[in-house]
């Protein structure tokens, strides 16, 4: 199990959260902590995604057991848990990427705006457009920066150069990359640094204007500075999008998320508002995991 050394919250984040958040609601502050404070507005927001009693098998082997989980609008949900506990699997259920794997069997429901994703009538392609995904390893296409961001629109048949230009600029700005790459849009994306590539992948996901952004350990291959930038970005993005993020980094989960869900051996052990989870977990095993006394 890998848990990073504790490190101070990146400086800009404090300013940001102060700028973004409404004043913290006192009754939520169970204990004094340096953690980000969940917006009261988010707590009452309607759920965008509802996972209902979800089971999943890879062939004969069951990987998820009866998961029940809500993701509220404009919130950040962190999925944590030891390696192999099914975080990625659950994340990939949310945009049906598991369909691409042979032998996967799923039972239960995932509701997006009240509509079951696994209903046979659902068009997977248009569903995936509503769910942006950012992968653990940055995976830009071997194309130019511009073409990477424009890809999602191009495959939807968008040809109008003005629309594409506008979307590329908006998305790169949204991903905080615009200033760095505005002069080299026609250069290969593979020439960017690792952190820039990851933000490019975020921009690429933003370009198709998804409702939910799924991130699978987006910072695990990045250095602390690049990680800090992505975390800032997540803070900005949640104003517009709903975010589900898998992370192994407890500090990161504490810093960026409003809600946290802890998984163990394919089961959802507990889920709660992040502060409560980190300060006062209900289950013993959660506390062990969070404090690093696990195993």
């Amino acid at each position, binding site marked *: 199990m890998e848990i990073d050394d504790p490190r101070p919250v990146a400086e800009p984040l404090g300013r940001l959260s102060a700028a973004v958040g409404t004043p913290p609601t006192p009754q939520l502050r169970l204990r004094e902590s340096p953690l980000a404070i969940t917006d009261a507005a988010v707590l009452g927001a309607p759920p965008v995604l509802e996972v209902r009693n979800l089971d999943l098998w890879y062939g004969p082997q069951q990987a998820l057991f009866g998961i029940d989980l809500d993701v509220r609008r404009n919130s950040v949900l962190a999925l944590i848990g030891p390696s192999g506990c099914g975080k990625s699997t659950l994340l990939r259920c949310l945009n049906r990427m598991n369909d691409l794997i042979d032998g996967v069997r799923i039972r239960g429901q995932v509701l997006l705006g009240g509509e079951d994703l696994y209903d046979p009538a659902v068009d997977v392609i248009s569903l995936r457009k509503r769910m942006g995904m950012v992968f653990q390893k940055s995976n830009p*296409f071997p194309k130019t920066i511009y073409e990477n961001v424009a890809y999602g629109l191009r495959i939807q048949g968008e040809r109008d150069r003005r629309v594409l230009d506008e979307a590329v600029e908006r998305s790169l700005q949204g991903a905080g990359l615009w200033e760095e790459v505005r002069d080299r849009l026609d250069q290969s994306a593979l020439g960017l*640094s690792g952190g820039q590539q990851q933000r490019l992948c975020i921009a690429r996901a933003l370009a*198709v204007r998804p409702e939910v952004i799924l991130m699978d350990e987006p910072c695990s291959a990045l250095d602390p500075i690049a990680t800090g930038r992505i975390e800032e970005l997540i803070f900005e993005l949640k104003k517009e999008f709903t975010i589900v993020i898998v992370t192994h980094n407890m500090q990161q989960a504490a810093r960026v998320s409003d809600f946290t869900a802890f998984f163990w051996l394919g089961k959802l052990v507990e889920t709660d508002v992040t502060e409560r989870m980190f300060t006062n977990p209900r289950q013993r095993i959660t506390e062990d995991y969070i404090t690093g006394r696990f195993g």
Partner: protein
Amino acid sequence: MSTGLRDWMRRGNGLVWLSAGVLAFAVLMIGGLVGLIAARGLGFFWPAPLVLFETPAGPVLGEVADREPARGGEPGRIQLRVGNRDLFGQDFRWYPESELRNPTLPEDALMVERSEYGVFLGRVKELRKDGLTVSTGPAALDEALERLPGARKAQAGIRAVEKGEVGRLNTALEAIRLERKALERRPDPARQPQLDAREAELRSRYADLEGRLDHLRAEAKRLTVLLEAWDGQVKEMPLPQVVRLVPSNRLGLPGKLKVYASRLWEFVSDDPRESNTEGGIFPAIFGTVMMVLLMSALGVPLGVLAALYLREYARDGWLVRAIRVAVNNLAGVPSIVFGVFGLGFFVYTLGGSLDRLFFPERLPTPTFGTGGILWASLTLALLTVPVVIVATEEALAAVPRFQREASMALGATKWQTLWNIVLPGAMPGILTGLILAMARGAGEVAPLMLTGVVKLAPSMPLDGTFPFLHLDRKFMHLGFHIYDVGFQSPNSEAAKPMVFMTTLLLLAVVVALNLAAIRIRRRLRARLGGSTF
């Protein structure tokens, strides 16, 4: 075992040495083969000294071509290239070494390359115009050398008219003949007189042209050289029939280099002469390149599409595995079998049907119902498709899974992902397949012999007459040329260097095509993986 040796083994040094040795051996063999071919071929164009020997039967002038040392009771022998086939009956002759005495290098000895009967060895006796002597002896040689370029140019002009204007008129007349034949079945009274008028006009132009050509030909024949062999026989011939005058013995290094360059250029740029044993092989180079390009254009899409389905869409099961095995084994089927298939299916079945459907007025003369460059290329495309399929499958499998997932996660369909991400990513691998296919296809001869190659093609598959690309035409090919010149030639001794040269050129063509593909591949690779972290 000493610790030193054990340590040496443990590091795998033995294996390193073994592999290096095997590689060196392979390089040596290939280098030796290419070197031999190059030496035997390229040396042929160098002007060799013309040696005069005394023999019991009189003086003999020739190039020393070969030498056999004395062995056992047999005395040593020397082979001379004596030329003058029209006078002596054969170009090459063996002499016992003891019979050749007093070698000298006469200054006025001359090799005359002619457009007929091979070379003439001897000297210039006179230069004549309209049968009257202009100059004699060495002065005649100098004047002949001076006038030769002009005479050659005039001759080339005649050839151009014969091939160009006469050819065009013939094509037009043939078109009228075909239309008349078509009219017999669907009579059209209005068209008939138009055709008559057009034909009359063409025929009168034809007659004009004939007149002009006759005049030019007569003009060209006025200047003649009187040549004398060393045994005293003489031969008079029009100057334009001389291709090159090479007074080897009095040429310095620059002069020899000039002759060498001119011969080499003739070889790669000119048409063959004398049943392919002389002149150039340009049509064969052209035919080879065009056939390979056509084959690639037909075979690569076929292979790529097949591999795409096999790798990306077909559900992995016993059927797919069986097909894969079959494809791999297809690469081991003897090429002549493909040739037979090409003849039976493409030429007779497909070509025959095309003729009945689209060219009925030309029957019984077949258009597509006989061998041609299209059928040959298709046959070779089939032959090389397994290579492309295997290479493409590997390349598709090597495209990283995370790139596909990124595309799918953005809402791309499988087909869009394949087209936009996977295929471009697999392109370098596909090009590797193309390179292997070209190398294999360019060297194949057997299937071509059944599907459209000829020893001498009257016209090329790409030329200036409409519709410019003639896929139905037969063509010449370097590989077949090697076989034809080397083993079917009436004058095999003279053809030997041609075989080496042609082989060298075939290698050069294959290498050039491959280098082009490798360049493209390198550029693609750079674009796909210029990762800088």
